[in-house]
């Protein structure tokens, strides 16, 4: 059985690469991008279960991206990643259909727990 497919979207490339490696070590099939536009391309191209999405990004921001994903790929669950200052945005994102949100800095344990929960929501027949 293969692990959930996770797309990590954050403008901090170093963070993205570290998270991708750590999640892969834990059985996820993780990939990462650093812009909202790239994220939409990848989501459209591949079959991701969960998207871990940073709210504050230059260019296309997290809220715009989640709107498109929820519209065009409602099966994909989105977890928002926010700094303290953008907690209000995260709540707004939840209202737009985000599965959950996490505040930076996150711990890998919390991240894995929420990703599994989201993945279960996305593919209940496979994970359940």
């Amino acid at each position, binding site marked *: 059985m293969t692990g959930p497919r996770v797309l990590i979207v954050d403008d901090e490339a*170093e963070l993205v690469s*570290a998270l991708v490696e*750590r999640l892969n070590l834990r059985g996820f099939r993780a990939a990462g991008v650093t812009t909202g536009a790239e994220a939409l391309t990848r989501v459209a191209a591949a079959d991701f279960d969960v998207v871990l999405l940073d709210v504050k990004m230059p260019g296309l921001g997290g809220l715009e991206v989640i709107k498109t994903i929820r519209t065009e790929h409602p099966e994909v669950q989105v977890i928002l990643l926010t700094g303290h200052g953008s907690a209000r945005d995260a709540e707004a994102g939840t209202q737009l259909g985000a599965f959950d949100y996490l505040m930076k*800095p996150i711990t*890998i344990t919390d991240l894995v727990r929420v990703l599994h929960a989201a993945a279960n929501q996305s593919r209940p027949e496979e994970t359940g």
Partner: protein
Amino acid sequence: MVAEAPRPPSAEDDGLISGGRYRRMALAAFLAVSTVALVPLLLVTGVSYRQYRSAFESDLSNPMLRFAAAAQQSLGSFLSERLSALGMIMRDTPIEDLKNSAALERVLQTMEQSFGGIVDLGVIDETGIQVAYAGPFALEGRDYAEHKFFQQARVAGVSVSDVFMGYRNLPHLVLAIHKDLGGHHELVLRATVDTDVFHFLVRARTSRRPEQAAFCRRCHSLVVPPFADAFIINQDGVLQTPSRFYGDILGRSRLPPLPHSSEPALTEVVDARGQPLVVAYTQIQGSPFTLVVLSPRDATHAGLMSVRHDVIIFVVVSCLLIVTVVAAGTTYVVRRVHDADLKRAALYHKMEYTNKLAAIGRLGAGVAHEINNPLSIITQKGGLLKDLLTMSDELPPKTKMIDLTDSVLKSAERCGVITHRLLGFARHMDVQQESIDLDALLHEVFGFLEKEASYRNLRITFDCIGEVPHIVSDRGQLQQVFLNIINNAFAAVDDGGHIEIGIRQEETTDVAVSITDNGIGIPESQIPHIFDPFFTTKKGAGTGLGLSITYGIVQKLGGRIGVTSTVGKGTRFTVTLPLTHPAAGSSE
């Protein structure tokens, strides 16, 4: 290490409350209130005193003038009656009787009974020899050819002499009537008037001689005002009656020449002794005499002087009282104003301080957000290193471990830059002057907002025109000014907006910084109020203090701030700062 919280600047640190300003305020208030209080007092007192003096002088001069008029009439009548009588005697008495001393004696007695005041009678022929005489002295045969009254009578027909001693060696005056008998024969009838009687007519006094005392009792003597002296002088100023001031008869009066006046006149003169006098005088008609009524000015004005003295004391005491009360009141009020200003300035500084703390708080939130990214990288890179070490039996490759460690170090360095920037802002809370590169300072301020600009896709451009010199000013205060204005610009523009920061030197003494946004703009009606405290366009989101405090700081730094705006197009704030703040040297 415990960091000490910056001390809020006190109200007096920057010279807002200066002693000189309050001294000037106190002086101006003191002068204004004193003037308002003293001028009416002095005017009313002056006018009242003037009216009183006028009434007083009128009271003083009227009795003297009345006396002079009465004495003029009395003396004029006395002389004219006796001259008429002499004229009648000369006309009606036969020439032989006139030349007869016994007949003349009878005429004298008749005159004495009818008129009185005549001492003797004499008849003088054309040679000047007194051919007949009736009276108490042995004067028959005396020669009067050289006497003035004789010569004057022959020329004018009538003569009234000055008072003189004559053959009898007593003061007397002579009334003389001339008659031309024809054929070079002439007669002059002369009558002697006793000066005691003359004097009696001028001043109430009993005659020294019994026969004339009886006459005096029949006359209505005039009462001289108690403060005055009354006497008669001739045309040379020689006393014709005794004077209380200038001595006995035939002495000199020491008065300056008085202008001719046939009516009683009043004047003020200074006599030869330097004595100021009030003088009423008049010519006595048909005679060479001037009646003088005088009084020393000091004596007559004693009452007035007393009133003046009282008035001066009243005015001085009142003025002192008013000045004291006004000075005390002014001092009290200005002290209250000073205290209120101190409180207001302290409140203003507190507001300024609070605004800065709020700015730091806002920045803190931004910084916390910004710092989360490198922290997250540190966490995840560290976590990955641990994962590689614990989740695999083999050690990860050395290059991998070095890459991870570099990432951790680089991110830690990023955190350090962010915290240093925040500390650099918070550190400048106290007022201090230093040389400042405005371009660098604006980049530093913008550094706080860089991330937000990036997230919101804002285009920020810096335009430093020409060589802009450093200015001497307060770094912390300028940071606050520009942070407030740039924050407002950020709030005014939509995502993707444009903010332009321009710096240029203006003239030779100033540097201007303009911050222009293409945001929503400010309605024209609100522009006059945007620097007012508590005025805000950010409904519910602003305190309304930011621009007010910005305005206050710029003014304090010796600069000025202006704003132009068009709704829908954008706003430009221009801060003009002096190269050197004039108060920079004294604000420590």
